[in-house]
């Protein structure tokens, strides 16, 4: 690990000011950042520890939703009774990720800001445009089984590994931030992540020193919520594909559906096309397959990850069947 200056922040304004300096970073749970620092992939000169800041707690909003503090741990969020009763999708997704030990340290804000990554990001003997801009992408013609098939570029095909963020995307969560100048803004979670394009090293729209304060969940949408994760091991593995689904239906037809995928892109992949295809559609296998075709119509495989495209379609079909009790 490279040497760094350690600062325990005691106020939001001073924390943002410190983190806005070159080569400075916030640290909360640290589970992803410290792992990368040990490998000297992350080399901050200054760490700003925000754990003492008043950014905890889960509270009801006047609109009937929930505001989740950035420092609420993944464990605490998944175990919260309001979340379990009203946003079971979110509890399921969090519990599908990492291990009990990691969820006890990982925070809400930190989970959103974990690095979008692939094995070549960790392998310092290989080119990686995310780690070293301009060096190339070893994953394009390499071991790309875990990589993305939607929304990425020939400069980077890494996938965002969060499960929590996939559920939050299906729930239309909003991310509340504060900047070093004190300005606050609210970012729809779907707009938090930047497509890799020519600059895969820049992963979010956040400015230097901009701090996530909280995540707001609007009131839960009507319908059944299910998070379904497909992975190589039964537990403690990244998704090959996951589906966050909210579906309202009557006896014959889908009334409304929300569909977000994990494991397919640089961000949780919300599919407006799948949702439009499902709205009003009969509860049939043909409808579910049509939604899958719509969701993956622009997908592109890179060889070893070609299987993710049919797997995503089939996982969506299975999740729809499970949620509606059909086929």
């Amino acid at each position: 690990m490279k040497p760094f200056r350690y600062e325990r922040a005691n106020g939001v304004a001073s924390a943002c000011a410190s983190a806005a300096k070159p080569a400075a970073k916030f640290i909360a749970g640290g589970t992803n950042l410290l792992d990368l620092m040990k490998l000297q992939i992350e080399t901050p000169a200054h760490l700003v520890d925000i754990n003492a800041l008043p950014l905890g707690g889960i509270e009801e909003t006047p609109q009937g939703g929930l505001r989740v503090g950035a420092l609420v741990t993944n464990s605490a969020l998944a175990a919260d009774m309001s979340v379990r009763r009203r946003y079971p999708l979110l509890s399921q997704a969090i519990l599908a990720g990492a291990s009990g030990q990691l969820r006890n340290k990982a925070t809400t804000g930190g989970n959103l800001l974990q690095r979008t990554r692939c094995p070549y990001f960790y392998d310092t003997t290989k080119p990686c445009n995310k780690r070293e801009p301009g060096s190339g992408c070893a994953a394009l013609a390499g071991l790309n089984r875990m990589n993305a098939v939607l929304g990425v570029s020939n400069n980077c095909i890494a996938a965002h590994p969060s499960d929590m963020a996939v559920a939050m995307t299906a729930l239309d969560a909003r991310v509340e931030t504060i900047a070093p100048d004190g300005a606050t803004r609210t970012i729809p979670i779907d707009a938090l992540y930047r497509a890799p394009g020519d600059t895969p090293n820049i992963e979010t729209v956040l400015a230097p020193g901009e701090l996530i304060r909280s995540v707001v969940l609007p009131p839960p949408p009507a319908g059944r919520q299910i998070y379904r994760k497909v992975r190589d091991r039964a537990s403690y593995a990244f998704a090959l594909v996951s589906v966050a689904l909210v579906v309202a239906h009557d006896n014959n037809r889908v009334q409304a559906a929300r569909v977000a995928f994990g494991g397919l892109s640089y961000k949780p992949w919300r599919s407006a096309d799948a949702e439009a295809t499902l709205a009003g559609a009969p509860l049939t296998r043909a409808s579910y397959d049509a939604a899958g075709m719509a969701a993956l119509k622009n997908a592109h495989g890179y060889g070893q990850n070609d299987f993710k495209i049919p797997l995503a379609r089939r996982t969506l079909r299975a999740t729809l069947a499970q949620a509606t009790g059909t086929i």
Partner: protein
Amino acid sequence: MHNESVALTVNGRRHALDLDPRVTLLDALREHLGLTGTKKGCDQGQCGACTVIVNGQRINSCLTLAVMHAGDEITTIEGLEEDGDLHPMQAAFVRHDGLQCGYCTPGQICSAVAVLAEHKAGWPSYATADVATAPALTDAEIAERMSGNICRCSAYPNIVAAIREVAEGGRS
């Protein structure tokens, strides 16, 4: 770069340390306090051998900086026994032969002690069919909750048996 002063409370004893901020909690325990029960396996949060209990919650001590734990109550495998008597979870691991080489065992036991506390608090897991309910601690629940602790000797059946016995109130 300069050292940071931090007071760590480990197994009820307070230790004043002067540490390079790069020192992980794991290395502080092992190298600075001589508490070598906590093991370094992968050093990247994958294996669980370094699991300790901080403020009642299990964490990977390899993925956290020691300087971030001023004022926290840290419990390691050395702190589980009471007056020379093994903690019930330690005794159950011995009784059920929940190990072969033993390297992962301190982490397994710390994790298992915390798993029972999490279950008692009603926390669901990925194995819980309805997350709004407090599930029974089935073998499937124990396996899922312990998935952050790897045992290369594959003593899993006996580890699960030991945890189940303690969960059910003791020796069966």
